[in-house]
């Protein structure tokens, strides 16, 4: 059983929801990524989404764009991100790590080399924002061959036939984008999520994580009631941007702890 499946199975037995924080690798600097990852786990994260910076992050809002720019300026690359995961795995053999980013850096490295290196360093899943299922056949073969879960986005605009198609290909969990817009936008519509989820559940047997637009403990708690996992990205990246090198790990830890408490109290 994969680390992702084991994690969600355990959470289900405990009747808890997953907390899935996102940070961009190499932000604010490469030396901080592994300490931040361990800090996230200590603060209560169940799955880590590690952003691979890209020069043209079309699906991201200004917060994550700036994080990508900082990381690239610091010399971060896809190979470098994979090395950081290897470093993280020296002290953490159980927390699932999912890489999230755009397809071109992987195309440049080659899907086979990428999937192989993912398996070596202990990456569990890959989410490629701009590679929909139609264009991902070759990519999947390589990911599947090395046991790396392809993670897919679904959106409020996704039609039922596509949900079915994604259900067949997805592994690990499915990431439901809770709003029409880029990452970090503020207009979260809970009733729209509530309406869409039964349609998703009809086809998708995997856990469903919800993200985009989750800004604080209150929204995290409200979203946790509806799904299996809460993804928080821009809010954490904003905290990194607002912190100093001295307090960044502590600040991010405190924020994630608050989210953890809120999610665990979702039934109140």
């Amino acid at each position, binding site marked *: 059983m994969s680390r992702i499946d084991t994690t969600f199975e355990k959470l289900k037995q405990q009747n808890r929801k997953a907390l899935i924080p996102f940070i961009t690798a190499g932000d604010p600097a490469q030396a901080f990524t592994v300490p931040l990852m361990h800090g996230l786990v200590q603060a209560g994260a169940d799955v880590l989404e590690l952003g691979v910076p*890209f*020069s*043209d*992050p*079309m*699906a991201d*809002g*200004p917060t994550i*764009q700036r994080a990508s*720019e900082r990381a*690239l300026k610091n010399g971060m*690359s*896809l*190979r470098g991100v994979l090395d950081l995961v290897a470093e993280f795995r020296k002290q953490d053999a159980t927390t699932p790590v999912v890489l999230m980013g*755009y*397809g*071109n*850096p*992987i*195309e*440049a*490295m080659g899907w086979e080399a990428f999937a192989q290196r993912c398996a070596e360093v202990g990456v569990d899943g890959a989410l490629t*924002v*701009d*590679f*929909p299922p*139609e*264009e991902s056949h070759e990519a999947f073969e390589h990911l599947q061959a090395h046991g790396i879960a392809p993670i*897919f*986005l*679904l*959106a*409020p*605009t*996704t*039609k039922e036939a*596509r949900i079915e198609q994604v259900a067949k290909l997805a592994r690990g969990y499915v990431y439901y*984008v809770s709003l*029409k*817009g*880029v990452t970090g*936008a503020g207009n979260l519509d809970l009733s729209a999520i509530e309406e869409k989820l039964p349609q998703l559940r009809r086809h998708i047997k995997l856990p469903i994580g919800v993200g985009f637009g989750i800004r604080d403990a209150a929204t995290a708690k409200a979203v946790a009631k509806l799904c299996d996992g809460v993804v928080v990205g821009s809010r954490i990246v904003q905290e990194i941007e607002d912190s100093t090198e001295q307090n960044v790990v502590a600040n991010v830890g405190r924020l994630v702890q608050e989210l953890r408490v809120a999610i665990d109290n979702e039934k109140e």
Partner: protein
Amino acid sequence: MTYSYPDLQGHFGQFGGVYMAETLIPAVEELRDQYLRFRDDPEFKAEFEYELKHYVGRPSPIYHAKRLSDDLGGAQIYLKREDLNHTGAHKINNAIGQALLAKRMGKKRVIAETGAGMHGVATATVAARFGMECIVYMGAEDIQRQAPNVFRMKLLGATVVPVESGSRTLKDACNEAIRDWVTNVETTFYIFGTAAGPHPYPMMVRDFQCVIGNEARVQMPEMIGRQPDAVIACVGGGSNAIGLFHPYIEVPDVQIIGVEAGGHGIASGQHAAPLTANSKVGVLHGNKVYLIQDENGQIIETHSISAGLDYPGVGPEHCLLKDIGRAQYVAINDDEALAAFDALCRFEGIIPALESSHALAHAMKIAPSMAKDKVLLVNLSGRGDKDMNTVANLKGITL
């Protein structure tokens, strides 16, 4: 030879496709279905042709640049005068087509990206013409070098949004327009300016621009009794070029030459010529194409004197035409383009856009070694009024 691209999924061989975030997939699918529904609709075609004739002023003439050709002493250079279109460039052909489609799809808000500003002006123009709200995204760097076009768009009622991210040029304007589209997908039609992006854009933009080559195929025999020996056009994303080239793909014995922006020279690394520089295949802005990138797959900042060619990618059909050998792609450096710009001003009384000056420069380069009865047809894709500031600066003149 039968040439039939793209396939139903928008692939030109290994190129093209639909590489978009899930949120936009339904939007591009709707666009594809609606375009396929209307492209052969007699009423749609009639309205498009009416607008091209009465609003744009088509057909655009072909002009024999005789003094320039005589001075070069070789092949005869003919110019397809897209610079004489309403708004001063080929961009209006496509903007009209997409606006008519937007109207049929009930979208009242249109957005666009622009580099040199010609596509922004064309979009602002059709938005005014059809009563639509218009937002144009433009890199902050380009806003500086193309100030007259920015003012023109504002006069036409458009909102011009400066883009400060990344290299602050065309590719970043594309990113920002895509972000707007994701957010406002239900109300908004994205009038994309070049024959690239996710399917159906490369096919649709090509179809609307093919009026250029279709006219030329009729006009050339009328003028000289035969087709030209070569058709030449500048290639950024490549919409004016594919509009001229596509109708000639299956015409035997017509050489097809695309001219990319060589910037400071291919060897300098400061250029915008992915095909000439043998860049690797990559994925950006919704399609798989040859792409200027570093070894880690990050997009590199490009350089060209001409904002309209300053783009790291190129349309997927040009990538295919290169691979199958039907078209040849070359690069012209900034200084060569400027020399051609000057030559056309002085010999023919025509001020060309810096983009089109690249195509002209290549024709001027090869003409002298060709026989005098050979004919080169150059797509003069736009006029140079917008480039006054850039050219003056380069000559050390303050306007």
